[in-house]
């Protein structure tokens, strides 16, 4: 009976409505800053704290190495130090391999899985160390030197008496070896990780000239540079940025050309950065840029080793960052942002033509829609009557004011652009259809915009793409909208006002001490490669504004052969005799 009751109760329970218990949802608890820090403190004595100071400056690093200033001579303490620093046992990537040398001396090595070449570690470190016989060595502090000098079969080994150096070495892919009784680590260069191969540049495409671009690997990038600039004075200084991600960036320059103040300033700015994670050159660039509030970029980013080499040979410095396929070049002027690496590989008349086209493209991209608005709404007397009448005929059935039409098309164009960049490659084909058909043709047929506008927007877009520098093109994209508003309100007068303000702003800008409009304002020694590119053999001097140590690039007569007689030569009218 009771059983039946239970069954019935269970049955009715199933039929009846029952309020479901509410599931608990996750929330992130707030952490009181003081207690949070206190909690985080013991977790990473060196990983956070030590490295932070490291990031703050090379000069200060040694005095600021907190906690463990020196390496203990006891292996257990060192084991404890390493495992605590790397949050063992939660952290599964760090591998600590303990072993005993010749059955008497305890030792261990630590590395991060995935960053090292394991085969190299086994064959060149582990095997020779383990094959030591007991009579071969003496115990004591000197033992690590003996092992470094006589046992390890790896070219790059460094002795380090600083625990935070050891931690940083391990983070960078080195293998740290510690032997009991010693007061330092042996850091062996065993790095090997997956990286992209050198490929053709993706942004800066050119027709004539080298077709290789930087990759994400810093060493590869510096090597690419050294390959085409073989000079002992090509210096690459490595600095660490980001106190949590501890990333390296290289400042590359030619020591006997560049003005030392530039290097000093670059290093000062990079070293002073107190940011936990600096990832990519874009972030670093923003952190060290002079004109942080300016639309126009005051630094040049390039992904081409050849262009970088050309720039550092002119007396500029390149900043290359680990994990970023771009080099930042400073100092630059507005004119260098309008140059394309192709210019130097072409004969100079071609380059001049290209530069004029680029200047035109700059004006088209920035001003064309604004000019159209100004002319059609304020200055109609400026248009040839025939063109005016055909514009009117085309606009006859369009219900919107010209400004709205322009904004409509500009916004659609920006949408297409952004969608084109973000769209997965597989569906990329659809974009052309949407853009060309729907927004272009259909909008005109539906009398939403007038056909002249399509031409304006297309020319503007083309102009924007013809600007060689991506950042500058971006600035122009935004400026275009400012010009549109100015011209919609004030016509040509508005455009002029904005132009004057813009020119004033640009003229007052500086890029690492170099006036941004220099060679034009302030006037300096004539540059043979500012806007117009003269023949290569005329470009004898380095840019005056850079104040390089060596101002001359070429001898006054760089093509000596023009002043010499050829071995087998003849004069006009001479007999062959």
């Amino acid at each position, binding site marked *: 009976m009771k059983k039946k009751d239970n069954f019935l109760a269970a049955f009715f329970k199933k039929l009846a409505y029952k309020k479901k218990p509410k599931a608990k949802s996750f929330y992130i608890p707030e952490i009181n800053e003081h207690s949070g820090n206190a909690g985080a403190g013991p977790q990473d004595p060196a990983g956070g704290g030590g490295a932070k100071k490291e990031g703050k400056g090379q000069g200060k690093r040694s005095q600021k190495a907190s906690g463990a200033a020196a390496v203990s001579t006891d292996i257990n303490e060192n084991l404890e130090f390493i495992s605590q620093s790397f949050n063992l046992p939660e952290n599964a990537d760090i591998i600590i391999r303990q072993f005993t040398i010749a059955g008497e001396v305890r030792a261990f090595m630590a590395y991060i899985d995935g960053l090292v070449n394991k085969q190299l570690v086994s064959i060149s470190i582990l095997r020779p160390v383990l094959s030591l016989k007991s009579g071969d060595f003496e115990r004591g502090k000197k033992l690590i030197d003996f092992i470094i000098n006589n046992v390890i079969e790896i070219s790059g080994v460094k002795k380090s008496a600083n625990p935070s150096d050891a931690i940083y070495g391990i983070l960078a892919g080195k293998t740290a070896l510690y032997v009991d009784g010693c007061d330092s680590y042996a850091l062996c260069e065993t790095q090997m990780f997956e990286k992209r191969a050198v490929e053709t540049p993706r942004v800066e495409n050119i027709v004539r000239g080298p077709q290789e671009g930087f990759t994400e690997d810093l060493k590869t990038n510096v090597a690419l540079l050294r390959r085409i600039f073989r000079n002992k004075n090509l210096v690459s200084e490595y600095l660490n940025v980001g106190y949590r991600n501890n990333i390296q960036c290289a400042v590359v320059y030619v020591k006997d050309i560049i003005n030392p103040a530039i290097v000093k300033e670059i290093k000062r700015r990079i070293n002073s950065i107190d940011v936990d994670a600096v990832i990519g050159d874009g972030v670093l660039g923003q952190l060290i840029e002079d004109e942080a509030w300016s639309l126009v970029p005051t630094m040049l980013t390039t992904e081409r080793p050849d262009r970088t080499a050309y720039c550092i040979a002119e007396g500029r410095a390149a900043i290359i960052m680990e994990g970023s396929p771009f080099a930042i070049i400073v100092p630059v002027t507005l004119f260098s942002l309008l140059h394309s690496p192709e210019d130097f590989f072409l004969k100079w008349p071609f380059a001049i033509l290209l530069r004029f086209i680029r200047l035109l493209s700059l004006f088209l991209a920035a001003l064309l829609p604004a000019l159209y608005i100004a002319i*059609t*709404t*304020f200055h*109609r*007397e400026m248009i040839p*009557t*025939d063109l*005016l*009448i055909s*514009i*009117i*005929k085309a*606009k*006859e059935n369009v219900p919107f*004011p*010209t400004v709205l039409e322009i904004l409509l098309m500009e916004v659609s164009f920006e949408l297409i652009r952004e969608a084109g960049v973000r769209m997965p490659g597989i569906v990329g084909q659809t974009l052309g259809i949407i853009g060309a058909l729907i927004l272009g043709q259909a909008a005109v047929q539906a009398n939403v915009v007038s056909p002249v506008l399509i031409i304006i927007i297309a020319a503007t877009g083309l102009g924007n793409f013809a600007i060689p520098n991506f950042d500058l093109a971006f600035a122009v994209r935004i400026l275009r909208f400012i010009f549109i508003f100015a011209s*919609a*309100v*004030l*016509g040509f*007068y*508005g455009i002029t*006002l904005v132009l004057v303000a813009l020119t004033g702003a640009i003229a007052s800008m500086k890029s690492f001490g170099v006036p941004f409009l220099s060679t034009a304002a302030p006037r300096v020694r004539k540059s043979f490669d500012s806007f117009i590119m003269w023949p290569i053999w005329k470009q004898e001097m380095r840019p005056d504004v850079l104040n390089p140590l060596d101002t001359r690039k070429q001898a006054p007569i760089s093509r000596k052969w023009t002043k010499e007689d050829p071995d087998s030569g003849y004069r006009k009218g001479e007999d062959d005799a």
Partner: protein
Amino acid sequence: MSVKMAKVLALLAMAAVLSSIFTGCLSDALEVDDEAFVLVLGIDEAVGNAVRVTIQYPTYKRGGSGSGILGGGGGDEGGGGVSRREFGEVDGTIVTTIEGPTIVEAMDFFNTSISRRISLAHIKLLVVSESVAKQGIRDYIDQMVRFMETSRIVQLVVCKGKAEDFIRENVTLTGESPSKNMELMILQSENIGLFPRVTLPQFERDSKSPLRSSYTAYAGINDFQNLADGPAASEKVFKWRYFPGELPRQGGVKREFLGTAVFRDYRMVGVLDSLETTFFLLVSRKFQKGFLSVEDMDAPGHAILLRLYYEDSPKIGVKFQGDKAFIDLKLKLSADIGAMRGESNYERIDKLEKLSRHIESVIEEGMKKMIEKVQKEFKADIFGFGQKAAGNFLTIQEWEKYDWDSRFPEAEINVDVTVDVRRTGLIFKSHPLGINATQENR
């Protein structure tokens, strides 16, 4: 920067932006299709008001008449159907007439019926009827020149008869664009040298100047009655002198530009015919290129066609003896032979010399007559001799006291024309037909 400072700066920036917006041109902004752009404006004598104004403006319909996408074969737009003509539609344009107290007010009167705002910013042609021109056009010119919206490149034309009729005949037969037709029509002056090209500001300047008198193009309607029927004349007649409306012509646009209207103090005092206009343009440095034929001295009854150029710009020298001005006009021309009968070998160097002298005498004679007509009959210095004459006076007050306008008719003008025949066309030797003649010619 402190918060207060930032606030002050923001306020200043806002003031700068807003003041430029509020005091800006926003109220003057107009969409292109909100305006009707007048292409031709005519001024006639009014009956019930001060001035009768006729305007011609485009219809903004796709395609012109008779062609284009919609026109097809004689659609309602094509051929100028009667129903459309009623509304004053003339080949893609509307012609409408109104009377008003002033020209600018007449524009407002027009806008009581025209939906688009009338704008004079693209006006091509200002047509003044001859009767109005003879009464004086100072106030009309002032209205047009002073009014800010008027186009500065409007061409002034005096038309024989009524301006309204002239504009109604201003049809677009070639192509679809009335404005293009007007522009090109005006530019014909440079190709043919049969009528001058004078813009309104230039006319205004010349009229007010104490150095010269003004002139402008003369035009009229050809009603196609001059092409006489009947037997051909037994002897060839060469005629170069025509006034507008007199050309023996059939078909095409009825309005024609021919000759020069001479003004003195904003008042039209006379006209120059086609040949005189060519000579006038030659003297006043306005001549670009043009053909002129002279009678063949070796073969009377035949013409030698010449193409004239300046070899040097005309040199004008003015000297005074007492109060009398002596004007030396030196004109150096070069000519190409365009066509001739070819009876005698004009290409030979001595013959060429002779031909040059002959052309010189013809041009000099015509020019003297023309200058005399302008000087004695019209008493207007349209050549700008006064410009040079003024150089003989030390101050402008002395010059004004001298009163060039009244003294000019007394001046003595010497004309010296030099012509060099430079090129003989694509034929470099000619001789009469027949063996004997050939030998003789050698």
